[in-house]
């Protein structure tokens, strides 16, 4: 199994969060198809799947010329009526033919890109994760276009309450050494949670993330790159399951929340600016972001160990809760100061 994807995450360009009822209009990118909405534990709406045809080079670490033909599967989603994501992925398989077939062949295999010749998984996964070439498969642009299509909706007022950057999460999932390609076992199926990714603390973060694999062949490596680029490498037993895409989107969402909150707190200049100024700068975070943190809310249980690993290192929730406390403390101090000024305390 070799699956690659890219998730782009950003703020929905609207002054307030959009109600669930509006999600159908905003994400209804395909006539005759309903937007699916999940309400618990947080409102999450996802567009119908969309396909894009590609016939191009796939990035390879060895610079080998690898041609792939097939379709990219994409979707756009809105979480909490506030955060927009565009997500695209492909499964890479070897073509049984030595030449390009009629298009109907590829359309019958949505989300599959067929590669001519032998597939060298490490070469392609390394190539995709690190690629800076601009003549190779570009899943990010595909995701971006679906995001743009949503942002262009006439139902949005395009007045975002604060400025924020879009983040990019490029991910690759491949089978571990024991992965047989069978779909029965989830990521922890063979070894259970004890010997799964939590066993050896396989997550690495930072620019030179090293990563780790357990003997059972599961592993996760999350790397925070320059600008807004992150890469995620997963090694799983078994074959493709849609849970992989859900997990990557969930991680991208929470990474964006954390990144965005960090920027807001930084710009508030706590300790330098006046209390009133600090509170005003922090207000959008209280209004729009703090309630959205819900890691692994809708994930397949099989992926829970990956989240647990990431919670240990780099410790997403630890950092988030510390920031949230800081924001609330600042607001509380300002409230007290105001009360004192008005003589109410």
């Amino acid at each position: 199994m070799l699956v690659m994807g890219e998730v782009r995450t950003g703020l929905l360009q609207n002054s307030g969060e959009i109600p669930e009822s509006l999600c159908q209009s905003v994400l209804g990118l395909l006539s005759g198809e309903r937007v699916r909405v999940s309400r618990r534990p947080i409102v999450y709406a996802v567009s119908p799947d969309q396909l894009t045809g590609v016939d191009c080079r796939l990035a390879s670490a060895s610079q080998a010329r690898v041609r792939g033909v097939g379709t990219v599967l994409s979707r756009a989603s809105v979480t909490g009526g506030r955060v927009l994501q565009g997500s695209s992925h492909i499964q890479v398989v070897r073509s049984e033919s030595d030449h390009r077939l009629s298009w109907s062949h590829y359309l019958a295999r949505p989300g599959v890109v067929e590669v001519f010749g032998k597939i060298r998984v490490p070469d392609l996964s390394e190539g995709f994760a690190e690629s800076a070439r601009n003549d190779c498969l570009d899943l990010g642009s595909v995701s971006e276009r679906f995001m743009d299509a949503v942002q262009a909706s006439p139902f949005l007022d395009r007045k975002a309450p604060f400025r924020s950057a879009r983040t990019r999460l490029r991910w690759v999932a491949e089978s571990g050494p024991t992965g047989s390609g069978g779909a029965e076992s989830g990521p922890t199926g063979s070894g259970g949670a004890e010997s799964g990714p939590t066993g050896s603390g396989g997550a690495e973060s930072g620019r030179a993330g090293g990563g780790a694999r357990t003997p059972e062949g599961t592993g996760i490596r999350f790397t925070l790159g320059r600008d807004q680029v992150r890469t995620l490498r997963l090694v799983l037993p078994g074959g493709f399951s849609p849970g992989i895409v859900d997990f990557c989107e969930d991680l991208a969402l929470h990474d964006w929340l954390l990144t965005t909150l960090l920027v807001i707190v930084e710009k508030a200049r706590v300790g330098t600016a006046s209390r009133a100024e600090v509170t005003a700068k922090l207000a959008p975070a209280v209004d729009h972001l703090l309630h959205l943190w819900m890691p692994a809310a809708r994930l397949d249980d099989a992926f829970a160990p990956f989240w647990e690993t990431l919670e240990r290192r780099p410790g997403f929730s630890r950092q988030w809760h510390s920031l949230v406390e800081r924001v609330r403390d600042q607001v509380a101090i300002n409230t007290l100061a105001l009360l004192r000024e008005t003589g109410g305390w």
Partner: protein
Amino acid sequence: MTPAYATFGEVAAERRIASAPLSHVSIELGHLYMEDFQAGPDRLREQFRQVAPWAETMRRSWQSRVPGGRARVSTCFLIDDYFSRFSTPAELVPMVLEAAAECDLTIDYLARESACAEADGVMLARLVEDRLVTDPPAGSDGSRPPVTETGWLCNGTRSPYSGAVQAMGSARRWEPPAQNAKRRHSIFVDVELWDTDSRGRTWSCPFLAAVWQLLRLGLIRNEGELPVRPKPRGASFPSEWDDLPAIVQLNPAAAPFSAYSTLSVLSSRFLPVELAVRTILSQVFVDAQVLGQVADRSGGEGIRLPDELVDRISYVFLGA
């Protein structure tokens, strides 16, 4: 079932897709245009006489594939009321039925061509147009949106615009178009999907024929529901085409309208139209869940259908 959609546990988050009753094969006995009608009932009888043995061959072929010979075969007939309006249902339909009966053919379902554009308030042609995923030329890496000419669909790369004059003022040399899936030499096809005039958009005959094939294959859904269901015939036929249901079930004992596969018996003058139809259908993305339903059902009967939907369509082209 495709796993791509099965990611939620909540009822509101799940897709519900109605399933269509399915025959083994849907045989199109004819397609009536104004010129055929103007040529008189003899022309129609002649058509049916030519079609009958092919329909019978297909019926036998399925009977031999299905245990006990219980093949579900339905027949249909399409009347053009979209490009030109002629006669009335009250006058025309009995004439068609009579001509068919003389050749021992039973027409199970009668459909109006305009139903392929819009039926029961559902814009079928728009639904299909929205599901076109264009055949990408080499070099399509996703960084730019697919190159399209509004209202046209091709199977490759068009010739560069010949009116363009290069910077040095010399006219650009002609370059050939290319088929994407060519085997050394190209057969380039460029199909007009629709045009517009003061009355709005008019869908092309191949586009409506592509919708027609998808309806017969039971592969179109609107918000998870079947967009058109055949309605039983009334005691008489109306005097206005608009009053005739999109698909009328003429034979109460007929097998289901939609089927695993289709056969169209046509005059060879329709060959270019059907090439265009196949060019369109090769680029229509049918819902994976719908395809899964059909595959499960046929698999349950021990029938393996081709993955590619254009391979589920057969033709007989008859000389003039």
